[in-house]
């Protein structure tokens, strides 16, 4: 039994002995790593059963024409056999370039991209601004911080209903706008204003996380760097540009990635704000949900196909993002 901690003891594997045969290597590998495999077994089992198996099953469903009328189900004592058929890649072809593909997929796709970009941009810049303000020596700093975290502390499904009351036709927002003699848009009915209010509510919900993480990042920047840059004659903007921003790099690249993934997948805000009433304001995730569960008959195959497409988009995006980050870091190092 070798030591399990090979990071601490340095690399043990490698070129000390000539490479043994395959059977021998498997046996050695087993003896050397069986602790590790025993320890990851629970998670491996859970992921296999709860994630990979449903994923494979979902992938299979996308290749069929399954919907709620032809899948097997039990009504009372009667069992109805599944009668859906294998249709190959028809679902994907239909979604991506079938008739009315623009209305069903591409318009939602574009809106999802806009939604993600605008929301994450607003989250980041508002969050950064507030974090910078909170990072000063300021009376009542703790108090401000506690209040500003509130949108994150209260569960989203509660706050979204609060917003619904406020944005209703004769709600407080429109009453206030009317009192100021400003136009009173139909926040929850008109397509543009639906999208506008979705972004507004989501921004309200998402800023605190960015703010708190970036504040943590700001506080970990070494104070001597600011002193040194000031000695070299840097003004406030230059200190921000060349000390604060690089110092926030690690934190901000993580929170922006997390923010993009969360916003892209944001379900609760749009679903609870509009329910089934706003087909134009649905992002891809909620649209896929509506296809699968919000209509009759439920179109399981198409909904699952949307899911797979979404996942593909996210994986491609994340790997590019990571590659881009790595390249930037290498450039900095040179």
């Amino acid at each position, binding site marked *: 039994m070798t030591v399990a901690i090979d990071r601490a003891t340095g690399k043990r594997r490698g070129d000390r002995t000539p490479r043994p045969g395959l059977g021998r290597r498997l046996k050695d590998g087993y003896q050397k790593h069986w602790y590790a495999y025993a320890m990851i077994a629970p998670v491996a089992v859970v992921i296999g059963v709860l994630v990979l198996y449903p994923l494979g099953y979902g992938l299979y469903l996308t290749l069929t024409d399954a919907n709620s009328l032809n899948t097997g189900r039990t009504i009372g004592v009667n069992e109805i056999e599944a009668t859906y058929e294998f249709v190959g890649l028809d679902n994907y072809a239909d979604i991506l370039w079938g008739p009315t593909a623009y209305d069903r997929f591409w318009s939602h796709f574009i809106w999802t991209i806009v939604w993600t970009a605008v929301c994450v941009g607003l989250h980041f810049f508002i969050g950064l601004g507030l974090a910078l303000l909170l990072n000063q020596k*300021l009376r009542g700093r703790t108090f401000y911080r506690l209040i500003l975290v509130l949108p*994150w502390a209260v569960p989203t499904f509660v706050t979204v209903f609060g917003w619904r009351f406020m944005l209703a036709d004769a709600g407080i927002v429109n009453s206030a706008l009317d009192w100021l003699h400003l136009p009173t848009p139909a926040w929850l009915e008109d397509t543009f204003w639906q999208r506008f209010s979705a972004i507004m509510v989501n921004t309200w919900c998402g800023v605190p996380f960015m703010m708190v993480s970036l504040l943590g990042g700001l506080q970990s920047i070494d104070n001597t760097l600011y002193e040194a840059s000031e000695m070299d004659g840097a003004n406030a903007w230059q200190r921000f540009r060349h000390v604060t921003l690089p110092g926030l790099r690690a934190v901000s690249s993580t929170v922006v990635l997390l923010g993009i993934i969360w916003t892209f997948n944001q379900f609760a805000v749009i679903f609870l704000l509009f329910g089934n009433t706003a087909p134009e304001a649905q992002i891809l*995730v909620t649209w896929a949900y509506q296809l699968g569960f919000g209509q009759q008959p439920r179109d399981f195959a198409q909904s699952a196909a949307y899911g797979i497409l979404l*996942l593909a988009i996210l*994986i491609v995006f994340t790997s590019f993002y990571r590659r881009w980050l790595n390249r930037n870091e290498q450039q900095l190092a040179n």
Partner: protein
Amino acid sequence: MSTTTAPTKAPAEQADASTAPPRRVRGRGERSRAASLASHGILSVASLIALFPVAWLVYLSLGPDKNDYLHPERIWSKMTFDNYAFVLQHTQFFDWLKSSLIVSLGTTVIGVMVAATTGYAVSRMRFPGYKKLMWVLLVTQMFPIAVLIVPMYQILSELQLVDSYLGLILVYCSTAVPYCAWLLKGYFDTIPFEIDEAGRVDGLSPFGTFFRLILPLARPGLAVAGFYSFITAFGEVAFASTFMLSDTKYTFAVGLQSFVSEHDAQRHLMAATAVLVAIPVSAFFYLVQKNLVTGLTAGGTKG
């Protein structure tokens, strides 16, 4: 909450990044009065925006009639706690509380227990397949709900687990377990390897090292993973709305929606329930939020 007063520290102490005194401690860098006023102004406005929707919900919950939200000025004169009494006595509030707690706590316990050993293994050991496992853990966290919801629904209905607590817990575990493993890896990384070595030298097996030395040291990390799973499971909407069919098994996220149907909207009761749910959850959140943030960003950067 970091300290706000650190006026006269020696320069050597200021360099200490972990305690991080406020940036401008030197008199030379003091802000002008106007800048300070502007900061207060912006922060006050932001706080007001952050506070208002929640405060408004609380205010509306005190109005006795379901259309009071359209005439907020009338509430002031007839403020009452009747809505709260009604919600507690005549709705399924406690059923929902029970199912919310069962599902969230179940997810938390399973998530943390299953994930702990794996977090340790990926933090300390390098084994063939390590990179693939880390990749799977990362990718699983960014699954949109749309990926799993249809196949999960099919599988659970075949197993007759739709509308059962166990089914919902299992579904939540599909995200909670990889997430906890990832987060715990980040925490185990901060525990010095020397402790493991000392344990091994003293004759403990790797499992012994883990259970007797590392696990007790990692209690704060376990707590953070637990809090996070709990809060996520508690606030989840999509799966709960789809899989819980009978109204006694609704979680709060579903139960709240049931106040507003096509025929009737009992908004005053809904507001009262929302406030009742929000108070304990937010209090809990404030207790743990500092740890949550460190855990989240640490898990991400060390990947």
